């Protein structure tokens, strides 16, 4: 059974490889985004040494690594699932001898690995040449960061799948998907790191799963969070991964008895 799932990763990886041309321009787009924020943050810092607990050097690194990490964890599983539900092809998925949710997760992972190898890694090299990004020297931080990146992917995919599965109940969950996207970009700390939010908002966002996607791994990578605190942060990610399994499971259970195919 496991080998079937692993094959899903492989197939999706190869599928992405077939359309790789789009990705070269994608690297430039990400570099442009990082560049825009780099200049902006530089101007924002001005003569200030430290803002929101981060130096300008840490901020540059944070912006670069957040965008490159986004390339890895980002996927359109919500849209894929919603489309399969709308066009009815999900019915075929039901009769196949595998778990639909795990298959989607694996496909997302294949996509993620593809982007990590052919997008994030070369992209990061280019960005390091263009902007003063400071990479951590401690291999332990790298190992921890990669592990956290994997959990970013898991949590983000869980949120995506949950959003996608709502199509079972809402017929049209387009609005929900768009709002989820804004929520992830905003509340995960991609646009502004958590520590810049006003106190009450920061406290509120700490209770949401989104910060585990971008902010926590970024904070570890830049050295803002180090030592034992870094392991605590990993614990937070782990906790959210486990908690999010519950709504996923409940939704999936009740969705199966609710399916009606529109059109088909």
């Amino acid at each position, binding site marked *: 059974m496991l080998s079937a799932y692993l094959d899903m990763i492989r197939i999706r990886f190869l599928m992405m490889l077939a359309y790789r*041309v*789009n990705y*070269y*321009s*994608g690297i*430039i*787009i990400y570099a*442009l*985004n990082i*560049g*825009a924020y780099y*200049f*902006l943050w*530089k*101007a*924002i*810092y*001005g003569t*200030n040494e430290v*803002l*929101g607990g981060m130096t300008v050097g840490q901020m540059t690194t944070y912006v670069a690594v957040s965008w490159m990490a986004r390339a890895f964890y980002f996927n359109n599983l919500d849209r894929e699932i919603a489309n399969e539900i709308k066009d009815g092809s999900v019915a075929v998925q039901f009769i196949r001898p595998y778990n639909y949710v795990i298959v989607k997760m694996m496909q997302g992972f294949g996509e993620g690995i593809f982007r990590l190898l052919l997008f994030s890694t070369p992209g990061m090299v280019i960005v390091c040449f263009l902007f003063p990004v400071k990479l951590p020297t401690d291999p332990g931080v790298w190992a921890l960061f990669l592990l956290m990146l994997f959990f970013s992917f898991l949590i983000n995919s869980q949120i995506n799948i949950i959003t996608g599965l709502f199509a079972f109940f809402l017929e*049209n969950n*387009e*609005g929900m998907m*768009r*709002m989820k996207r*804004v929520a992830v*970009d*905003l509340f995960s700390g991609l*646009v*502004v790191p958590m520590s*810049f*939010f*006003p106190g009450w908002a920061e406290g509120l966002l700490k209770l949401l799963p989104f910060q585990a996607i971008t902010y926590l791994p970024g904070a570890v990578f830049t050295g803002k969070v180090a030592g034992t605190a870094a392991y605590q942060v990993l614990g937070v990610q782990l906790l959210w991964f486990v908690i999010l399994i519950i709504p996923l499971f409940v939704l999936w259970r009740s969705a199966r008895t609710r399916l009606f195919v529109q059109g088909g």
Partner: protein
Amino acid sequence: MFYLSLVADYLKNYMKTRLAYRSDFWIEVLSDLLFNGLNLFFILVVFQHTQQIGEWNEQQILFIYGYFMVPYGIFITFFNLWNFSERYIVKGELDRILTRPAYNLIQLMLENIDPSSLFSALTGFLIMIYSWTQLGIGLTWYDPFVFLLLVAGSIMIYGGIYIFFTSLAFFSDSPTGILPLLWNLQNYGRYPMTIYNKLLGLLLTWALPFGFVGFYPAAYFLDREHWGQFALLTPLVGLVFLTAALFIWNFGIKRYRGAGS
């Protein structure tokens, strides 16, 4: 007159398709506003920690951002040819357009009209008014006219750039992914050009003049002494870019032979 009646008919058509899915329309408006809210939120949060970006304060940055949204919202209402290559060239829908009497580009624009984006322009305008009152800069009798002229110029710049890069589809039918790239570059326009380095500044002023869709025209109202004259180049640059783009477009249309099927 003929074109005006076309606009009316296409709008009627648009309303009919929209009324079939009423909630979709509002969801689209709401999510457009949310995406804009994201950037607004960024500005507001950042100014909790600093007084200035470059030499510009919060209200000035908000004003620039508000201006940026006005021409963009209007432009994006009339121009949605992001999938021009696939839909019109590869699938061959352009043949249908070319057999009709109205100018092809106008038909293409009207076919893909999206009035929900006008709400973005409206929001931008409200932000401008708000920061205007906060800044306490005066209002002379010709300011509204200058504003209209500058917005028209900015729209022409958008038109010039995007029509040019869309018309590349006539010369190569492989996807290049250049349009999303431009879309990301244009966002540089909503912050002061003074914060970027020289190379980027030159690029955004003369090569891909996105500086003229946000910062320069807005600076006309904010700091007339320094930027007033330069900002008035906006309509001129717009005219040059739009004319060049239309020339290339027409040349491309003549070259178009269909892609089979």
